[in-house]
């Protein structure tokens, strides 16, 4: 069991790296897209195998340790890329998304080494769902940021003639916001049922969740404001994603006071 899971975790790195190189180096457009699609389908299948193994043999289904949140994140991102691939003219967002998959897959392996078995979140279902929805929403925001980054630097070259801006850049923010609302709901239930004893506390993680919620709430409305710059939405999408990465993997690691 352990060997199969380890092999599956490493194969995710290989598959995401191969998807990245396919997006960057394969010359023919249709050949590159077919390769990326096949690799991502394998990526989804590998994630499904890991989940099935955890279900069958793992002590803590569906999360074995807290870094498995990356598993749900990468699962989500690979599905989003497959879903929106058709509406993208440029391969650049696919390359960015593949590189995010690569980084998160690698981080999952690092996490499995530093924390072999998750101790906290499985005690409370709400905590587990909080972790899952947080990472799912992060990946929706990541995909929008990947598309937005290309749109910022190469305007008009991101979408196919039939592709709509809302499909690839806007809708992921909307779905990410909804997933984040669920994350907030389960986070509140976690806080309420655990020794925090309230849905809101003046702690750093709560303050940051407020930043994300209201930031993306504002962003969803921003494109309807007449005379606001067209590049505002993509700029906000990119900034929002980096802001979350900065908080989740830097600020909370070095500055969170416990």
């Amino acid at each position, binding site marked *: 069991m352990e060997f199969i899971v380890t092999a599956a975790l490493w194969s995710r790195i290989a598959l995401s790296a191969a998807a990245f190189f396919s997006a960057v180096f394969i010359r023919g457009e249709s050949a590159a897209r077919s390769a990326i699609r096949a690799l991502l389908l394998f990526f989804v299948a590998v994630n499904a195998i890991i989940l099935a193994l955890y279900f069958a043999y793992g002590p803590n289904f569906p999360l074995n340790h807290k870094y498995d949140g990356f598993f749900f994140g990468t699962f989500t991102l690979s599905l989003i890329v497959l879903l929106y691939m058709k509406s993208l003219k440029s391969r650049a967002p696919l390359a960015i998304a593949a590189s995010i998959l690569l980084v998160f897959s690698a981080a999952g392996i690092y996490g499995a080494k530093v924390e072999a078995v998750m101790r906290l979140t499985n005690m409370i279902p709400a905590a587990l769902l909080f972790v899952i929805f947080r990472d799912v929403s992060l990946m929706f925001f990541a995909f929008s940021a990947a598309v937005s980054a290309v749109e910022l630097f190469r305007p008009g070259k991101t979408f196919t003639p039939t592709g709509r801006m809302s499909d690839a850049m806007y809708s992921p923010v909307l779905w990410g916001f909804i997933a984040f609302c669920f994350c907030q709901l389960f986070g*509140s239930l976690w806080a309420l049922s655990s*020794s925090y004893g*309230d849905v809101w506390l003046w*702690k750093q993680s709560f*303050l940051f969740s*407020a*930043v994300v919620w209201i*930031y993306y709430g504002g962003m969803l*409305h921003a494109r309807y404001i007449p005379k606001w710059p067209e590049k505002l939405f993509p700029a906000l999408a990119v900034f929002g994603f980096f802001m979350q990465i900065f908080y989740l993997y830097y600020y909370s690691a070095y*500055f969170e006071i416990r």
Partner: protein
Amino acid sequence: MMGITNVSGNNGFIAKAWRALASMRLFCILAFLIAFWFSAALLLYLKYFALFKEIDRNVLIDWLFSKSLFGDPVRIWLLGLIALIALLGLNLAACMLDDFAMLLRLLKRKNGSSRFALSKLSILVVHLSYIIILSGHLTTAVSGYRLTLDIAPGKTIGGAPVPFTMRCDKAEIIVGMRGRLMATGVMTMNPGRDNEEKIVLKPGKSIWYNGVMIDMEAKTKRKASPGGAIIKFAPADATPAVRLTKNYGLYLDAVGGIIFFIGIIMRMMFRKEQSI
């Protein structure tokens, strides 16, 4: 209400002010300002975390007025936040009145699309949920109580404002994961009707009794440490305490949360493509 909100053709001062107050532009500006303001709190927290922890142990309004309003940066920050959120509340209320007026106009039309009316209704429902959630937070900030009381076997605590007394039968400090100290205990609850009841308080779990949330904690003179390194104490360094929290705003938050998800589901079902 139609008279107030149907101001699109009117350029008087009140009409202009209303349009500005109910505008999406104001909402966006406020949303980004509030997000920025919360981010600033993450910086403030690094230096003034003790003050933020104090807020958690008190009803917000009591804490706010317990010292000079402009006495420390956290209070100033909090006043700014309250001002911004009050403006956001006004903006949402104005939007809601506009939504309601538009919905009434749509319903009066005989050939109007019911899908479009439902789409507008979904916006109204989402805005209403935000107002209810904000009201819940306001209620939490100004009402209820948060008490942290030391406890020891044989000691009885409670009485006004708590609607019961509790006698401690057992209280002990245990060492949890990563050396964290936690408290556990057994209490005999007496709501004053001679029907005593025993409850077990487990570490990391809150329980509800007569509308009051009860949980136990291990009180230490611990210093906060950034980066997750937890200072380890021996059980003898801590004393058990009981926290009693009465939070009326939770009920409004729960109702607002349910309405919010109903509104979101309606929005996803009835929205036009490429719109929120």
